[in-house]
């Protein structure tokens, strides 16, 4: 059960996010996590600014995208978004501070890609971003039973990288000069966080994986 703060200025309350269907309870002050809806497209589009390329928003070829609000609205109305792949992170005042998402779930190899997307890097210091990261990791490990999650960061995303390391991610290597943006090449680093409990996802016929 959760309570959402009144957007007109009522003091923030301790908020309990009880995602019964996922078996999760996230207790966090001044935080509201909800499934991203099509109306968030106007906020989400800010993340795609040319001057601030983010690794999490590159396409399959590692090229930056320039979606319009309407295109994002359409994506957020898609079945994948409706299943809860994208989540909006609000602070105690009801202001959107960022997003988190879980994508590319691979059932047979038991991993997926996760991303944390603050609207501004300074937002990473806010409790709602920490709650968002913990929420998405719990969803990957406790609900889906994955063995690991992955993410990628650009060499210039130092604060985001530090944020991931604080939450248990470790480097799996760096692809050199893999992205061209803002007049120069950038390195892309892969970060991995292993499920501390080991995987419980069945990875092969009749067998259960406990890989790490």
């Amino acid at each position, binding site marked *: 059960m959760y309570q959402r703060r009144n957007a007109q200025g009522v003091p923030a309350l301790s908020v309990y996010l009880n995602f019964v269907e996922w078996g999760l309870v996230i207790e966090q002050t001044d935080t509201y996590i909800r499934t991203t809806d099509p109306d968030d497209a106007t906020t989400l589009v800010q993340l795609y600014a040319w001057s601030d390329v983010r690794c999490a928003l590159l396409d399959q*070829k*590692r090229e930056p995208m320039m979606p319009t609000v309407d295109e994002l609205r359409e994506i957020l109305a898609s079945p994948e978004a409706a299943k809860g792949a994208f989540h909006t992170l609000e602070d105690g005042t009801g202001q959107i501070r960022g997003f988190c998402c879980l994508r590319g779930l691979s059932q047979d*190899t038991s991993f997926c890609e996760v991303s944390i997307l603050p609207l501004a890097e300074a937002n990473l210091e806010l409790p709602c971003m920490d709650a968002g990261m913990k929420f998405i990791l719990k969803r990957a490990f406790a609900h889906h039973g994955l063995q690991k999650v992955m993410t990628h960061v650009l060499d210039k995303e130092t604060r985001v990288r530090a944020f991931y390391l604080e939450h248990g991610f470790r480097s799996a290597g760096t692809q050199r*000069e893999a992205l061209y943006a803002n007049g120069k*090449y950038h390195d892309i680093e*892969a970060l*991995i966080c292993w499920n501390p409990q080991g995987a419980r996802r069945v990875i092969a016929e009749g*067998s259960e994986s406990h*890989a790490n």
Partner: protein
Amino acid sequence: MPGVLLQKGQKAMPIKSESFIRRAERDDLDVIVEWMEDEDFQRFLYGDPARSPKQIREQIVGMLGRSVGHTMPGGIYLMVDSHKDGPLGLVLLQNISWRNRNCSLDVYLGKKEFREGFVAGLATFRALEYCFDELNLHRVSAYIYAFNRPSWRTFEMTGAVRELELENHVLRDGALHAIYGYGLLRSEFEQFRKKFTRMEGVTLKSMIADLVVREGAET
């Protein structure tokens, strides 16, 4: 030459080969489909963790079915062919990013007897020349399974750097295996070419010159 020690300053004998690479055509579809049905194709080639085997198969069939070549395609498929032995294998240049000037490379030799020999290395070398000299790319990547040692050793010999080690990343035979991510920059490939002058006789340029001579002789 194997077993012969060279004196200081003496140049090694240039390598010669009967094999060559060419664009894959619709007429190659039957032989490619035959290779794709081989369990080794599934076991070794699907190195890209971002795409499923089904996606790759559909993409290959789709690419071969095209009537005209795009000026800036997202993928290019080349056949490794031989004057003596016929089609030997397939070179896949995929996820070509014209913005980042990079692509991912897969090499598969359908004829097993050629897999661990010189043909695989030569096909990789020529494919890299094609990437850097013709497509003007800046970087070539390859995702190779850890258990496919001959393949990643071949790629390492061209100067490629192992940049990623993804443990427990791909499912084969009921077990999870590691994937290595390799990257080769143009500058690194240039260094390799300077070092291994024996490849001069089998470069893409000399291969094309040889094909022209052969065609002239046939007509």
